[in-house]
């Protein structure tokens, strides 16, 4: 048990959350981060879906890594990811239909998410299943963290709500407050992701 949560394994899990965050540091998976973050709920669902898919595809690839011929490894990885994406997409359609409509094609497009292929190629192909699982969870949650921050800011300022509940009180609107329409546009999420990266780098300046 001690070995499962050794210091190295903890770092494998915690690094992607902060110091090696897939969005803020590696700048991967930006397209979906811009597309699905106009409200908090789809951002959370998207983050969780990517976490689940990254974790399990990492485990599966890591289990069969020694039997995959090197030349066709990308195809094998894609097949595994595609199967998992299809499962997640069907589950979403069955249990959270509204969100899956909001996410539209972006659930299917998780297949092309750079974070997934990056983790499979760079980590799962040369590490054991448990480390790969931690790495997948860590990277997925690191991605989800940024999505939630961006979705929080955009929904609060763009719609005045959080998870659909009204947050900005009515008397603010009566006194002339207005929701910021630009926050609901994809252009603004690019700017917010930029600001998040800016803040992240100024906080972690010394550690690099």
């Amino acid at each position, binding site marked *: 048990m001690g070995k499962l949560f050794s210091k190295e394994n903890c770092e494998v899990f915690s690094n992607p959350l902060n110091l090696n965050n897939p969005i803020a540091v590696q700048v991967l998976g930006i397209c979906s981060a811009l597309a699905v973050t106009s409200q908090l709920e789809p951002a959370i669902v998207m983050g969780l879906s990517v976490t689940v898919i990254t974790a399990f595809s990492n485990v599966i690839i890591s289990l069969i890594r020694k039997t995959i011929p090197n030349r066709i490894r990308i195809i094998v990885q894609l097949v595994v990811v595609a199967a998992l994406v299809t499962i997640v997409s069907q589950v979403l359609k069955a249990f959270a239909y509204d969100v899956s409509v909001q996410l539209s094609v972006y659930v299917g497009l998780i297949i092309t998410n750079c974070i997934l292929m990056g983790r499979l190629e760079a980590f799962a192909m040369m590490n054991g299943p448990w480390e790969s699982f931690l790495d997948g969870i860590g990277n997925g949650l690191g991605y989800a963290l940024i999505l939630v921050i961006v979705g929080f800011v955009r929904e609060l300022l763009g719609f005045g709500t959080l998870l659909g509940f009204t947050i900005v009180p009515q008397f603010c609107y009566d006194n*002339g407050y207005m929701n910021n329409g630009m926050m609901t546009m994809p252009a603004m999420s690019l700017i917010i992701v930029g600001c998040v990266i800016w803040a992240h780098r100024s906080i972690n300046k010394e550690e690099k």
Partner: protein
Amino acid sequence: MNALRNYLDKIKPNFEEGGKLHAFQSLFDGLETFAFVPRTTSRVGSVNIHDAVDSKRLISFVIIALLPALFFGMYNVGYQNALAAGQLGQATFWGMFWYGFLAVLPKIIVSYVVGLGIEFTVAQWKHEEIQEGFLASGILIPMIVPVTTPLWMLAIAVAFSVILAKEIFGGTGMNIFNPALVTRAFLFFSYPSVMTGDSTVWVNQQSILGLGFTAPEAYTAATPLGEASADGFAGFDCQTITNAITGLIPGSVGETSVIAIALGALFLLWTGVASWKIMCSVFVGGGLMGWLMQALGLTQIEWWHHFVLGGFAFGAVFMATDPVTAARTECGKYVYGLLIGIVAVMVRVLNPGYPEGMMLAILLMNLFAPTIDYCVVERNISMRMKRATKK
């Protein structure tokens, strides 16, 4: 002036390193160099060419050039208010002017306080000199928004543009986009209902401090350009065009009067601050495109009507010629200006969502200015290379 100089020299040690007011050193430095040309000269060892006119003096020329349009804009605010209330007969010239003055002044103050506040903070934080670029932007911003824009929106937009369009690129002289136009674009896309349309945004309908009139019922006034866009560009009668030239039409504060803008343009050209190449080619590009659109039957508007409506003239004179964001090669300036004119008229005529295309055209060409310069320089290099290897 001597008394001020002596006073500044006397209090200066307080702001030096170790003085008790060191935290305000950039503020002091900014005010001192604004009042007097700095005494320090370049250090020996590098080659520098100095103009007697430094950039603070240059920017004060821009502000002087903006004054006719600003004062006329204030008068027009009062005029539109009286017109809305149906009290044009009782209104006096000075009454209307002071009403407009009171309506516009808070916007100028907010724009300067927020913008300069951020600049001073950043300068003090980075131990740099205060950069003067915002002196011009700060007065441009209230002139390109409707008079009814709420002050808190203006403050957010100014902060957004100073931080994200200017300071993160390195401050004055490094920005890609014109900060005043970024402010307007932010307002335009964030709060479209108070920035555009035929609602009540263009005319201030409440009296201020007893001046002006309160309109009896909600008075809606569209800008002539907005009306034209709404009814498919049916063309204008003579009266509208005359009013558009003198400037007695609803619109953003400073953009309505072509005559006042022309005075500013003459001053800018006479002092050599703005490039005549950019200014002229914007009008040529807009005219050509306007003529083409009319010839193709897409619009009934005469080609030159585009110049007097909306922000075309204001943008061409004060925005497109911003030396930081415009193309810098002489040949590139023609291309840059032509494309601004062409894109502005295209957006106006072809895109029903945006009655005014000048802001989008200038921002778009700001983005392409470095590319234009690159192409001009590369062409020059290859031409000279050919000439050299021809023999």
